[in-house]
């Protein structure tokens, strides 16, 4: 049952070293503040799931929080490569990173199977590609009715799902809209769920078919305004494209990355302090 709490308490109470954690949000509503809090609390040896590892996973990986990554597309959208992700895979820095690589359709289907409490997902896919050759979890089965060869993958069942949404009510029911990605499936596939929201309101005032996560499938709700930045929250703020571009030089070298993370994430107490720290750095640049 959802408890309305702080992000610090939610992460401290619900994410342990070694857990399998899915931070989802498909370019929209990316749970950046929650990822930062995991870095601040120094979690280690996590198996991280995410269809589209982008900046927050570059940060988690580069800070040594992860030992394994389950993913289907890793890049800085609209900009290029993820330098920390590449350094971890190519050079094992700061710690070796095992990968379990899929396609988007696989991950989406495998979350659905997890949410449906099935052992595996089935789809038309992967035939002729090299992914089954490098990922032993991808198998082929024969349809018992038609004989068609289909791809089968074990369902995704993370320990914890972490997402960001627009609103919760005072009882902890969560509402999101716009590009909703796989967040509902990830929450229902996971044992525990943490949701950060832009605001808590008296009444969600949602139409009957809105994407709602009832409070009894969520463990913690924390208010973090702007908590999806530099991604966007539809109805609240736009995507900070300039930050995605700025991330490329920041993350290119280990030293510049580490200095940035130490100053703005490890060196701040929460997401509000992080935002103030970034604003201060921007003023320094202007005055330099």
């Amino acid at each position, binding site marked *: 049952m959802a408890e309305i709490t702080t992000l610090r308490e939610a992460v401290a109470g619900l994410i342990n070293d070694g857990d399998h954690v899915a931070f989802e949000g498909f370019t929209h509503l990316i749970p950046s503040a929650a990822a930062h809090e995991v870095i601040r609390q120094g979690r280690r040896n996590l198996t991280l799931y995410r269809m589209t590892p982008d900046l927050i996973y570059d940060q988690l990986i580069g800070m040594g929080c992860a030992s394994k990554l389950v993913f289907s597309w890793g890049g800085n959208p609209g900009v290029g490569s993820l330098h920390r992700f590449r350094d971890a895979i190519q050079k094992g820095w700061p710690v070796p990173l095992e990968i379990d690589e899929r*396609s988007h359709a696989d991950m989406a289907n495998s979350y659905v199977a997890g949410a449906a409490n099935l052992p595996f997902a089935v789809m038309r896919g992967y035939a002729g590609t090299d992914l089954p050759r490098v990922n032993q979890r991808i198998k082929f089965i024969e349809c018992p009715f038609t004989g068609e060869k289909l791809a089968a993958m074990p369902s995704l069942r993370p320990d914890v799902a972490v997402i960001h949404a627009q609103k919760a009510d005072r009882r902890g029911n969560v509402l999101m809209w716009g590009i909703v990605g796989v967040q509902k499936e990830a929450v229902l596939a996971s044992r525990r769920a943490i949701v950060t929201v832009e605001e808590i309101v008296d009444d969600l005032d949602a139409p009957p078919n809105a994407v709602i996560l009832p409070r009894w499938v969520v463990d913690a709700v924390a208010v973090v305004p702007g908590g999806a930045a530099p991604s966007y929250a539809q109805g609240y703020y736009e995507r900070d*494209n300039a930050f995605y571009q700025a991330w490329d030089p920041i993350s290119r070298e280990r030293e510049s990355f580490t200095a940035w993370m130490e100053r703005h994430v490890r060196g701040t107490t929460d997401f509000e302090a992080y935002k103030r720290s970034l604003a201060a750095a921007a003023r320094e640049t202007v005055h330099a």
Partner: protein
Amino acid sequence: MPDRDYSASEMMTVAAARRLANDSVCFVGIGLPSTAANLARLTHAPDITLIYESGPIGAKPDVLPLSIGDGELASTADTVVSTPEIFRYWLQGGRITTGFLGAAQIDRFANINTTVIGPYDDPKVRLPGAGGAPEIASLAGEVLIILRQSERAFVEKLDFITSVGYGEGGDHRQRLGLPGRGPVAVITDLGVLTPDPKSREMTLTAVHPGVTEDAVRAATGWPLKVANDVAVSEPPRPHELEVLRDLLARTEKAHAGQGAA
């Protein structure tokens, strides 16, 4: 091409856009495919349905998205569905007429690599990976591929097959049981390659104005098959160029205006 009033990149985008029809239902990749698909929508194909893997169906963005899930796609779409629904009901369900992909590397049978350069376990360059491409390539009714042509991109042998075109050629695609027809054209900044009806080898069937067959051969990492009768692409019409340039200028302006960093 000093006497031309358009760039090779513009010619490529226009040539690709012309391959989409008003009744196409197009599953759009980010970057070059998205530019060409929206150019089609803003010129000869106003009723085209653009679907992005993040969930928007019938997106009509006024400016091009930087990411596959920009708010502009959601707020201009007929509807926005979940990512599982996009892949399960709309793509696997057989409702996509045209899959439109980019690529990092391609081979003579239009198989695509977007995963890794070098060995998988010890990569020289780690690329982003599959995303939606493998299932788009296998399930869409037909596939268009757009990328700039160079020896580095058009290679004799892929280090990794992320998405299948015609596999090893001939009827390999049918033997693999892939539902869609496969790639019907590879559109580049130099010309257009289409599959040989029997061997399925991608064959140069058109060059853009001012481009020689030898120039295309030189930018290809295998002995390129060239059709007996190579056509010359129709240059971009003034209206196509005007709409494309307006779209790119609007996009540039909108994205430069965002963000605080």
